[in-house]
């Protein structure tokens, strides 16, 4: 980049929001406005290197862009209707003291945070339009791919155009909701920078700075909104701890252990000032004002010991009423743990262990670990820290949590632990791939929720009940039962017989009876001449007997009573009529015992089936349900008007 390029880029970043906002008011389409502004930028890149950077580069860009907007409007069909307004607006431009510019930027902010857009799109569009960041810069900040961000921004602009979202300040009715969407987007950006959810660095300061700028800007544009000042105060004070919250090798330093001398007093004071403005704006404190008030409490304490935890616990209590989220509850548990002692905090934290939203949230075991440690329950604390480490996606945080776990001496006797036990259980060689996948899913949850190093004998039925209920309480009965079976199987293997004592199987709703195949299709099916004897017999038998497919496939030659046209299958009788009776002798073909329906091929040596599923004469195995189903589906694709093919169950005659 040449110097002029860099200057143009800097000017763009400082001015683009204003320019795009002004143009959007003229052309009523933010996508078009951005294109026009980009055109002006191209002109600048062409002219500035020769003519020099103008005295007021922002105004220069705005003038050029507006001229292009006027050209565009003149060309467009709606020229006549718009001329009048245009004349009025150009007149306004003569008066630089006018507040329209500021209001335009505020309108742009409401537009880019509009609820018709999904949240990630709001974030990207806001950084792009208000922060002047390119898609590449946004992608870097979020560790995302540039094409994805480009697409996200383009889609957002298209959505705004299609839904004809007006470029207006929200009316009174929707004011609160729209404002809270803007605040949410800004705080999301801040948090992504402040506590990066993934990656190796704990913070991405660039995003914090963007969010702070957006917040400070909003505070000037909407000075009467207490929550805006609350958010700014919250961000300023949180940002004041940036330098203190990571150690020399990037590891997190907890609030109470931070060197308060490294807190940025300038930002703290700015936070206090914002807080005063929030109080002046009046009204009942909202969630951001309350969170800021908590941040103020911390900032006011000269040392960690001086923290007014009673006050903080009270504020969290108020906050939890406005925002009854598990995260707020967890923070409240920390505050209560400090104000009223670790036992009180732990009791509150323990109410959250059954919350599905927190089952993979590393801070829950981390907080519990802290409280347990203070209660002298060292072994439990160590396990909680280890579990927290296994749950976080942030490398610096994981290392920190593991160190906390290691700092607690392991005084317990060496006991078999959960993680290796599960690995051994899954490592057996008698499990097929599907079972392994299913078992793996259930037991991975158990490992994540209880921790790999939990001593096996200490795993209780209560813990398992909690894990299963939290993870799959809302799941379908079939899923629930599958997980239960896995846990029972593991419990038996591990010698923990009552592992699932607190859990009961659920009744699985019967599947709705499949629509039987129509008579015309059946006739076509059985009229075909290319069917093998096995298929023809199986399908006839299924149709005439209306017996369960499993029962029919389980039939053995020795069970057949050909004279009476019936066979014993499990506890019931399978009966058939003339068509099947005609085919069966040929299929039996002199066999005296073994599975009635056989597969085409002999099993591979490594997959020897149970003796009951092998034909003693041919060495073939019993036809499997899957294979039979597959063949039927293939064979009936042409019959099915939907083209999917039928299932064997649909062969049952309607009775």
């Amino acid at each position, binding site marked *: 980049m040449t110097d002029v390029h*860099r*200057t143009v*880029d*800097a*000017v763009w*970043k*400082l001015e683009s929001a204003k320019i795009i906002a002004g143009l959007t008011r003229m052309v009523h389409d933010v996508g078009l406005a951005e294109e026009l502004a980009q055109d002006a930028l191209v002109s600048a890149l062409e002219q500035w290197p020769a003519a020099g*950077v103008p*005295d*007021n*580069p922002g105004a220069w860009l705005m003038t050029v862009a507006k001229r292009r907007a006027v050209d565009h409007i003149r060309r467009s069909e709606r020229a006549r209707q718009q001329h009048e307004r245009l004349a009025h607006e150009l007149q306004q431009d003569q008066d630089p003291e006018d507040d329209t510019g*500021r209001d335009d930027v505020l309108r742009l902010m409401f537009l880019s945070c509009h609820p018709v857009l999904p949240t990630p799109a709001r974030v990207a569009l806001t950084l792009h339009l208000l922060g002047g960041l390119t898609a590449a810069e946004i992608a870097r900040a979020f560790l995302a791919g540039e094409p994805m961000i480009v697409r996200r921004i383009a889609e957002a602009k298209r959505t705004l155009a299609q839904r004809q979202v007006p470029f207006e300040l929200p009316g009174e009715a929707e004011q609160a909701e729209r404002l809270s969407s803007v605040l949410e987007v800004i705080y999301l950006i801040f948090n992504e920078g402040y506590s990066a959810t993934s990656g190796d660095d704990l913070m991405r300061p*660039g995003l914090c*700075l963007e969010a*702070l*700028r*957006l*917040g*400070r*800007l909003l505070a*000037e*544009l909407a000075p009467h909104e207490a929550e805006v000042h609350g958010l700014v105060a919250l961000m300023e004070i949180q940002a004041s701890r940036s*330098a203190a919250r990571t150690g020399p090798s990037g590891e997190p330093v907890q609030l109470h252990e931070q060197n308060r001398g*490294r*807190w*940025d*007093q*300038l*930002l703290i004071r*700015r936070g206090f000032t914002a807080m005063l403005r929030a109080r002046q704006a009046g009204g009942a404190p909202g969630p951001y004002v309350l969170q800021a008030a908590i941040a103020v409490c911390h900032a006011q304490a000269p040392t960690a010991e001086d923290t007014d935890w009673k006050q903080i616990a009270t504020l969290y209590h108020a906050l939890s009423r406005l925002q009854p989220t598990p995260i707020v509850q967890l923070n409240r548990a920390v505050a209560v743990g400090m104000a009223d002692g670790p036992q009180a905090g732990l009791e509150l934290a323990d109410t959250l262990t059954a919350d599905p939203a927190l089952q993979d949230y590393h801070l829950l075991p981390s907080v519990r670990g802290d409280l347990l440690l203070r209660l002298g329950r060292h072994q439990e604390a160590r396990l909680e820290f280890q579990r927290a480490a296994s749950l976080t996606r942030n490398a610096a945080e994981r290392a920190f949590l593991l160190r906390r776990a290691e700092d607690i001496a392991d005084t317990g006797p060496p006991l078999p632990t959960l993680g290796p036990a599960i690995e051994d259980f899954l490592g057996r060689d008698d499990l097929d791939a599907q079972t392994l996948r299913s078992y793996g899913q259930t037991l991975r949850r158990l490992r994540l929720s209880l921790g790999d190093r939990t001593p096996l004998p200490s795993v209780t039925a209560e813990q398992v009940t909690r894990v299963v209920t939290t993870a799959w309480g809302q799941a379908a009965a079939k899923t629930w039962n599958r997980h239960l079976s896995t846990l029972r199987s593991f419990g038996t293997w591990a010698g923990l017989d009552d592992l699932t004592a607190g859990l009961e199987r659920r009744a699985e709703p019967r599947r709705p009876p499949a629509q039987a195949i129509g008579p015309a299709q059946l006739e076509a099916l059985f009229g075909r001449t290319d069917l093998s004897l096995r298929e023809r017999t199986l399908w006839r038998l299924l149709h005439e007997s209306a017996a369960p497919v499993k029962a029919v496939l389980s039939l053995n030659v020795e069970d057949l009573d050909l004279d009476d046209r019936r066979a014993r299958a499990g506890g019931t009788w399978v009966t058939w009529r003339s068509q099947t009776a005609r085919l069966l002798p040929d299929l039996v073909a002199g066999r005296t015992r073994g599975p009635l329906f056989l597969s085409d091929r002999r099993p591979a040596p490594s997959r020897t089936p149970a003796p009951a599923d092998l034909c003693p004469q041919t060495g073939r195995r019993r036809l499997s349900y899957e294979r039979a189903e597959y063949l039927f589906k293939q064979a009936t694709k042409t019959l099915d008007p939907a083209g999917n093919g039928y299932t064997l169950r649909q062969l049952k005659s309607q009775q």
Partner: protein
Amino acid sequence: MRYLMTNKAAETAPAPDERLHAEMGKFIEELTAAGVLLATGGLEPGGIRVASHGDEITVTDGPYAEAKEAVAGFALIEVRSQEEMLELARRFRKIVGDGECEIHQVFGP
């Protein structure tokens, strides 16, 4: 990035008048609104100098430099890049007239 910008006025700079006050006021307001200006202030011309030499501390009252060397004001600015800082400095100089700014990046607290 944070920058400290200090301003030294040249002797040829016009005495501050109403126009300058108005333009500066607007500039400061704009930068504050944009979330860029963290702190700013003017400095008294005299000042006090505290010097140390070995164990010896010497305190002298100002003015201790030529007028053109005297720092008249400062601004603490938070921007994304040096280019943004330079752009703002350029605008500032256009308003205040002859003189010079010194810009240093600020590290840590």
